[in-house]
């Protein structure tokens, strides 16, 4: 069989999905409560764009969510990466922090949601700390593994050439670990993104995640679908942006 253009395959799968959607809703097989037809979805979208949701425009909800993801991810990834680098480089640091990182990483965020509210209140702080805690262990583990995987020969070679510890770290360890750090960052964005709804149900009234949960309470499936589409597309865009950044910054990866 001749290989079909990948774009054609993508277009085909999208077309099949949309055709099934149209058939199910227009054919009257599914009630709009369970799956709104395209027209209702569009109306819901226009409605949200013009009137907003619960006293905030759609753009404000989008901005609120993006800001939280950005703040939580950047702080979590920065602290996590620094910690991970140190853990990979010095066994002592690893011994100090590894148990906490290992414990935190698989912990479901909803488990400690209540504690965050009691400690940090219901404002932005607790939401961002929740996202920070989601991003931190992922980045830390990626950076640590990145450092660990640096080939010992390279370090020995640099040392025999008279490089200082800082020079070794800066010119050998860091560049070798960067590809893994970036992979960690992309996974981290995914994790932070997945935690967004948990963060926004803390005393919500803004954010796409909260909007989806709140609209779901009244079974407003049109708003729910619009919210899911937006949050999904935003996630794809964020991931793409990181891929572009990665190819620019660590062009040597895999070579």
């Amino acid at each position, binding site marked *: 069989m001749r290989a079909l253009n990948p774009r054609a395959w993508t277009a085909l799968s999208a077309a099949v999905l949309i055709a099934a959607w149209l058939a199910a809703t227009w054919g009257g097989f599914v009630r709009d*409560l369970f799956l709104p037809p395209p027209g209702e979805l569009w109306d819901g979208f226009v409605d949200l764009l013009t009137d907003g949701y*619960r006293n905030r425009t759609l753009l404000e909800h989008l901005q609120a969510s993006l800001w939280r993801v950005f703040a939580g991810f950047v702080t979590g990834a920065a602290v996590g990466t620094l910690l991970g680098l140190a853990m990979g480089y010095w066994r002592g640091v690893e011994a100090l922090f590894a148990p906490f990182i290992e414990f935190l990483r698989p912990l479901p965020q909803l488990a400690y949601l209540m504690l965050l509210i009691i400690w940090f209140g*219901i404002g932005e702080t607790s939401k961002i700390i929740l996202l920070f805690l989601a991003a931190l262990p992922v980045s830390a583990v990626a950076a640590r593994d990145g450092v660990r995987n640096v080939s010992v020969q390279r370090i020995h070679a640099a040392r025999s050439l008279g490089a200082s510890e800082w020079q070794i770290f800066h010119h050998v360890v860091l560049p070798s670990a960067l590809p893994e750090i970036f992979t960690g960052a992309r996974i981290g964005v995914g994790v932070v993104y997945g935690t967004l709804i948990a963060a926004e149900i803390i005393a919500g009234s803004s954010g796409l995640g909260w909007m989806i949960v709140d609209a*779901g*309470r*009244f*079974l407003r499936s049109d708003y729910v679908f619009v919210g899911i589409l937006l949050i999904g597309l935003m996630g794809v865009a964020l991931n793409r942006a990181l891929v572009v950044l990665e190819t620019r910054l660590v062009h040597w990866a895999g070579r």
Partner: protein
Amino acid sequence: MTIINTSADRRTLLKAGLGLGGAAAVGALPRRARAAGPDKINIAFFTETSPSAIAKANGWLEEATKANINWIEVGSGAEINTAIAAGSVDIGIGIGSAPTAAGLSQGIGYQVLYIRDNIGPAEELTVRKSANIKKPSDLIGKKVGVPFGSTSHFRLLGFLKTNGLSQKDVTVLDLRSDALVAAWQRGDIDAAYVWAPAKSKILAAGGEVYRTYDKLEAAGYVIADLIVARTAFTNAYPEAVAAILKQENRALDVWTSTPDKAAEIIGKQAGVAADVAKADLLEYDFVSPKRQLEEKWLGTPGHVGRFAEVLLGTAKFLAEQKSIRSVPDLAVFQQGINTAPLAQTLV
């Protein structure tokens, strides 16, 4: 612990059975439905201080229906709506009138069978004593927490609207009742609109009641806790549904005749002390089955009462808030009330 002696119980059940047999003879029920009851009934319930807890604690529903009861705990009426729409819950006990009005408007296939209580002052605005909130405009610039989508939320928005306040003047935050108590204790919010036990905890931690319910009720913002059942389930198993409502009546009798004993059982189920449970229970106006069948509430089979208008009014408000898309005719809410099973319990 069983409270009522079983021989009397067997007699009343027999009577209920005869009543149903009579109804079936008239031709109202399909043949198969009389032959077999359901093997399993999925019932959604709240952990709350209400007489329903007595029936649950004593296993009365299992006993009366001879079915396995799958008790599903929920945290909001919205969860009941979703579960009934998905067909995974047959009966919802204690769902509020606001989510029910939303559910009927959205075409969920269920009906109101019972008004358990008129909420009255049991859900009320509580304000921080130190914040010195004495009139509606004192709330301007303050943060008020409330579980969104609940009857309390409906009341709070009604309070703001009737007093000419908007959600730009007052910050209304969506908090579940447990989170509400935590936020209150930290001082993050100055007011809350919620039910017991969260309300009692807030009052104990520097809160005071700001009375809104009487004026709101007069303005049409009536809220109530209901029992709803999937229409298909009621049609298939009318005896089982009537038997369940009968146990609800029985539990209410325990509360009215021996409140201390009832408060002890209910408190144990809700995880609060008996005296706290009793104080909470006293705030509700539990509507007796006879009163429910009056014109003011559900009405009688063939003549739906004014509660349909309450549901319609609630739905109109929810549509204004854009919580629901559109409001159906009064007829939809009238069809959404079925008093036949309740009437059978009184035969």
